[in-house]
């Protein structure tokens, strides 16, 4: 699902910052695929800091994103060295799904529309007016009530899976 404002933000970040990040990673011996992977993760962290947690930036966007990507590259590089030193394998096997990913897969199967509505509010940070427009509710009040109905529905599904908070965030 592409959202116009967010896609424009992503594209702007690529055009403005990816050349510097790619150049840095190439200078450290990294590949284009590694640069893309690092940059994608960098954008997620940037977005969650600025939009989801609504933290103001102390430095400029470009410097902040570059800093995240440089740190991610160092972590990635250290991890690669450690894994290679362990047994010489390249650890190319698929990662196993975590409890949270399994739960999300289940929740999507029982209520995709509610999950879409909830993520639009809690992750994309749409306002109630924007939420009402996107999902076709007549007023902010209707959208608010529907948001809580969805939250209750999803919470009941979580309850049915008998997971604890510790299981989930571990």
């Amino acid at each position, binding site marked *: 699902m592409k959202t116009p404002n967010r896609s424009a933000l*992503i594209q702007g970040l690529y055009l403005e910052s990816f050349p510097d990040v790619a150049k840095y990673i190439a200078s450290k011996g990294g590949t284009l695929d590694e640069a893309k992977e690092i940059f994608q993760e960098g954008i997620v962290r940037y977005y969650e800091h600025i939009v989801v947690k609504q933290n103001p930036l102390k430095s400029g966007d470009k410097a902040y994103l570059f800093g995240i990507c440089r740190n991610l590259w160092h972590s990635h590089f250290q991890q690669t060295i450690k894994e290679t030193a362990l047994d010489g394998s390249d650890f190319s096997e698929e990662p196993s799904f975590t409890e949270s990913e399994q739960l*999300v897969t289940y929740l999507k199967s029982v209520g995709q529309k509610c999950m879409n509505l909830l*993520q639009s509010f809690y992750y994309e940070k749409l306002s109630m007016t924007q939420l009402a427009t996107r999902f076709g509710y007549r007023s902010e009040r209707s959208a608010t009530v529907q948001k809580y109905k969805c939250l209750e529905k999803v919470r009941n599904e979580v309850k049915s899976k008998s997971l604890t908070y510790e299981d989930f965030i571990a």
Partner: protein
Amino acid sequence: MRTSLHNLEIIEEAFLNNSKEHQVLIEAKSLLEPKLQKDILLQLVTYEAVKTYGRELFKREISEVENELFSQSRFSAFRQKILSYFKS
């Protein structure tokens, strides 16, 4: 809103929006409704699940934009610039 939805709202205000007023209300209601503590934990798990799902959609959107930048002719200058860094 019915009572169960109202409780969801109070928990959200207390734990997501850090409203002191709602935190006091939760403490008081917990004395009368012992199951509220379990509801709070379930609601926090739900927020984490929604965040995981939101992140999954966002990553998909990033990939779509990246694919456009590396395939559409109007971005060829950008693409050539990036590729030039990886020529050995």
